[in-house]
């Protein structure tokens, strides 16, 4: 039994190492994919993070509110600030046109008298609250007590993105307005109650009772930031592991077409020994693939200026999940090889189904950006179970226990595919 299994493993190993094209598909293709996809996605992140969102600003206010917003935008890394178009100061009209043409993603127009309107509002509030004679205050009752700030939006910009950006802008403008209101408020109170020593130097800062802290809810003390590397390395490693279905299919179909299966079926050897040889060799291939891909994330991507992959702290978890993924991938390969009758059929069936499973599983695009309906379907992809497990280990810093359910699903998938393959073989023999 052992010597038969060893012979089967040796045969599969020799067949694999002599298939140079197959080997390049197994090892080079996913490495190239990791490089390309990570660089593409990382540069997309950098476009937003480093150069910022192009914003055109029109300040018709020429007072505190306008200046403070302008200062805020200029200092904000998220924005690429501009107040001129074609070398001329931007106006409401030219800004609207430039945003419509897509030269800027966002346009902000601060109307004339916006600061005055805020101040007037505060004065009015104080008068009504304290009920003092208007004459005793330096109060200008002329002009409007409200201002309308226009936020122009590029019509082709993605809605969710625009919502996020405009929300931030509104929050920032509102904060600036509050700052002015507090300043005005404390000055007015100081005028009414002439004990100037009590006037706070920075009324706004002191008014910030509620502050926010953003913390990544990772189980490790170190903050692991989701980035292109953290997604792409595990994602394409899983893809590569499942891609072994193509050479496994090729190997099985070739055995059928070359007549080896005919001979093997008449020999005193079980299906388990013949398939076991394939399973052991391709499990080994999956593990080598994993180590290679992880090395790319740890050592090669940082050489290109990309962040290094963070593996988390559970090496047991990584081992269990990788083995379970490899089992699922090899089982799937055996199933496709069993169902296919020609090499072409196997290659098409294998590659298309893997592309579909990977798209559904969140390999190409993370599932959290998918619509609800697709997210519901994605839970049926074994690649999703694996990716979810790696996210838990790499991003959330979870331990081996947290990925056991994912690993068990993958092992169950492997057992199911092997059982279907064995059953299909029996059915095919009962012609």
């Amino acid at each position, binding site marked *: 039994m052992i010597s038969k299994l060893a012979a*089967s493993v040796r045969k599969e190993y020799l067949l694999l190492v002599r298939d140079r094209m197959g080997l390049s598909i197994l090892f080079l293709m996913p490495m190239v994919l990791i490089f390309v996809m990570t660089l593409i996605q990382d540069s997309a992140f950098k476009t937003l993070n480093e150069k910022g969102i192009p914003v055109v600003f029109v300040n018709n206010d020429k007072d505190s509110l306008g200046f403070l917003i302008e200062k805020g935008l200029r200092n904000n890394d998220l924005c690429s600030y501009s107040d001129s178009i074609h070398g001329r100061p931007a106006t409401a009209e030219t800004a609207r046109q430039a945003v419509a043409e897509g030269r800027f993603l966002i346009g902000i127009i601060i109307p004339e008298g916006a600061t005055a309107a805020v101040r007037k509002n505060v004065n009015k509030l104080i008068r009504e609250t304290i009920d003092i004679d208007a004459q005793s205050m330096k109060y200008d009752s002329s002009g409007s007590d409200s201002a309308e700030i226009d936020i122009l939006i590029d019509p082709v910009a993605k809605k969710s993105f625009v919502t996020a950006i405009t929300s931030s802008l509104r929050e920032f403008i509102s904060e600036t307005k509050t700052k002015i209101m507090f300043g005005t408020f404390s000055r007015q109170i100081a005028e009414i109650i002439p004990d100037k020593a009590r006037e706070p130097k920075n009324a706004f800062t002191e008014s910030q009772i509620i502050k926010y802290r953003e913390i990544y809810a990772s189980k490790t003390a170190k903050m692991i930031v989701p980035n292109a590397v953290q997604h792409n390395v595990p994602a394409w490693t899983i893809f590569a592991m499942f891609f072994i279905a193509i050479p496994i299919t090729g190997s099985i179909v070739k055995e059928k077409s070359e007549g*080896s299966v005919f001979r093997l079926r008449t020999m005193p050897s079980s299906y388990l020994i013949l398939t076991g040889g394939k399973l052991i060799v391709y499990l080994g291939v999956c593990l080598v693939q994993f180590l290679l891909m992880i090395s790319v994330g740890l050592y090669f991507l940082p050489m290109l200026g990309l962040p290094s992959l963070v593996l988390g702290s559970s090496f047991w978890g990584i081992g269990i999940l990788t083995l379970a993924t490899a089992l699922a991938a090899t089982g799937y390969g055996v199933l496709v090889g069993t169902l296919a009758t020609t090499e072409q059929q196997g290659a098409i069936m294998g590659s298309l189904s893997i592309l579909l499973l990977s798209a559904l599983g969140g390999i190409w695009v993370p599932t959290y950006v998918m619509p609800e309906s697709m997210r519901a379907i994605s839970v049926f992809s074994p690649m999703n179970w694996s990716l979810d497990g790696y996210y838990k280990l790499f991003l959330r810093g979870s331990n081996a226990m947290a990925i056991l359910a994912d690993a068990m699903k993958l092992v169950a998938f492997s057992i199911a595919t092997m059982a279907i393959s064995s059953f299909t073989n029996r059915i095919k023999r009962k012609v």
Partner: protein
Amino acid sequence: MNNGAIIEIKHLTKKFKNSPEDAVKDISFTVGQNEIYGLLGPNGAGKTTTLSVLCGLFPPTSGSVLIDGKNIQKDPADIRKIVGIVPQDIALYSSLTAKENLDFYGHMYGLKGKDLKNKIAFWLEKLDLTDAANRQVCNFSGGMKRRVNLIAGILHQPKILFLDEPTVGVDVQSRSVIIGHLKDLNKAGTTIIYTSHLMEEAENFCTYVSIIDHGKILAGDSPAALISSFKGSGNLEDVFLQLTDTKPRD
């Protein structure tokens, strides 16, 4: 089981699911121990189907097959240990060398270690393949591939050997070598069941011949007896054509 019969087939019928007709129709025959039994017939006559049922590849639709006293459906594992198969197709891994192929198939027959190594070396030497032992099979000529294909089926010294057109497409020299060694194997005690289109080869090689067509056995006897029993027949090919007519088959 008849005295001296190693294979006994009774009322064997095989019908494939997608086929409207029976591939083999109620055939019965016995093969004596140490016989070279030729199953001859045109394309689609039912030779390979009969052989496949005897090898345990397909279950019979009806009828019974006893090999060395064991039922093919009840004791397939026992039967597999004593039979060897040389299929019509070159059932070898083309990217493996001759030695690697034989090593793998030898292990699958339960051979191992020094015994296996010696057997591989012996047969490679005997069939003039020692120099090519470490070359990949894909670089072999048709005749060389046929010889390796033969060794893969006889390496474990089977009691019964099934040969499905073992010399098809090979040159006269290779054919002569193959047939010569098969005769030696038979002398050493192996019963051979052989199918072929080559009447001259069958006439010289077989001790008993059955002519099969449309799934039925039309005649069976020693080649000499068959030739003499059909008037105007000078050789086995004449008998074959008289029984199966001269119309080309698909």
